[in-house]
């Protein structure tokens, strides 16, 4: 095995062009498990942790551009107020040790349907910035995943960053697992409200070959919500929203749960997320860190 350690972003892109087979390693929380357990023996690994640009974030024309190498811990601490949905999801990732090391770039790179960053990024209509020596392109997250653990990134490309608007309204996330920590989602759901544009974004995790949006549910609920009066949606409206989310999932039976259970849980989680989001206190409607109320 060969170990490459570029010092700068330019060097990293040049190395990736010269060694398209090189497996990038950031936090290593996916790559190292595969190496340790001998599931994968890459010829070449390329360490991205020395590259400063990947660990930086900033605002560009009102949009957040967050380096692929920013850890979950830093997302929670530094961006929890601007990206509450992603922060709630990040808090459910692994353990402190995993969150200190794991990155959204790595989550996207692995492209597991169960990756917890994916539903909130889908709901917020984020973009992935891919770079190579031949240039940079931005791909909407909703077009990034092409199959289980597959994505649109080319062999000569690296993930530079993801781009997302600071939450224009309440965001929520919910995940089902056997424990409150250290679990791969049985299924998960993210919701983002955009009151100014009267839009609702959704993301479904671990209930299909890729993370999914519930497009019909989004259109239905955006039309039903009382955006001006802020009256709570009726039970019938919440139920219909839940049904449409469940219908958008493409789950299978596997060791973590059955397809039927996943659909049922998605209907419940989506109703709850909507109720939580809609009940967000008015002064937090412009965004603001919130976690799910205790006991729900």
């Amino acid at each position, binding site marked *: 095995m060969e170990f490459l350690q570029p010092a700068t972003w330019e060097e990293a892109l040049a190395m990736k062009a010269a060694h398209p087979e090189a497996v990038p*390693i950031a936090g290593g929380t996916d790559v*190292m498990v595969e190496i*340790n357990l001998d599931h994968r023996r890459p010829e070449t*690994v390329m*360490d991205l942790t020395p590259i400063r640009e990947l660990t930086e974030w900033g605002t560009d024309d009102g949009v957040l551009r967050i380096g692929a190498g920013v850890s979950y811990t830093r997302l929670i601490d530094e961006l929890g107020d601007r990206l509450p949905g992603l922060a709630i999801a990040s808090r459910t990732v692994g353990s402190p*040790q*995993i969150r200190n090391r794991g990155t959204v770039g790595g989550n996207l790179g692995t492209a597991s349907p169960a990756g917890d960053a994916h539903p909130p990024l889908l709901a917020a209509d984020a973009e992935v910035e891919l770079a190579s020596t031949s240039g940079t392109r931005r791909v909407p997250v909703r077009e990034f995943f092409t199959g289980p653990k597959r994505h649109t990134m080319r062999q000569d490309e690296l993930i530079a960053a993801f781009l997302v608007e600071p939450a224009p309204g309440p965001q929520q996330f919910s995940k089902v697992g056997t424990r409150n920590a250290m679990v791969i989602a049985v299924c998960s759901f993210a919701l983002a409200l955009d009151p100014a544009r009267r839009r609702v974004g959704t993301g479904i995790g671990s209930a299909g070959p890729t993370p999914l949006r519930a497009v019909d549910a989004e259109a239905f609920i955006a039309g039903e919500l009382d955006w001006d009066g802020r009256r709570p949606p009726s039970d019938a409206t919440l139920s219909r929203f839940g049904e449409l989310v469940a219908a958008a999932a493409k789950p299978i039976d596997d060791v973590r749960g059955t397809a039927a259970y996943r659909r049922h849980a998605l209907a419940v989680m989506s109703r709850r997320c909507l109720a939580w989001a809609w009940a967000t206190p008015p002064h937090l409607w412009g965004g603001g860190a919130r976690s799910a109320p205790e006991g729900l």
Partner: protein
Amino acid sequence: MRIACTVNGHTRVAENVWAGESLLYVLRERFGLYGSKNACEQGECGSCSVYLDGSLVCACLVLGGQANGREVVTVEGVDAAGVQQAFVDAGAVQCGFCTPGLIVATHDLLRRVPQPSDAQIREALAGNVCRCTGYAKIIEAVNMAAR
């Protein structure tokens, strides 16, 4: 390949390292620091918890080369006598295999949150598995260390 890093304040160099070796392997098998334990090699148990540039990580999930030029503090080097004593006094050590990882993780918690609630303790130690104690004594030990 060659790895040079600071471990517990001293410069350490390992030569002829296979590029696939984890930091945990380098610490144990190259530097003879056996405090960090190897139980799962997949980030699940926390028994290999160390500080890497001041951040609590599983050493088994760090590729050796990634530690190049960085600062590592293991259970042997962490300044946690009070935490260790509390674990002994509370009876939070049975077979002891999980203890080094828990000492480092508890040290990390208490430097961030000096007076943690039980919920904060459970959350902070969620990545450290103990097969013996049932955790009640561990939580007691953390509370004792915090006093």
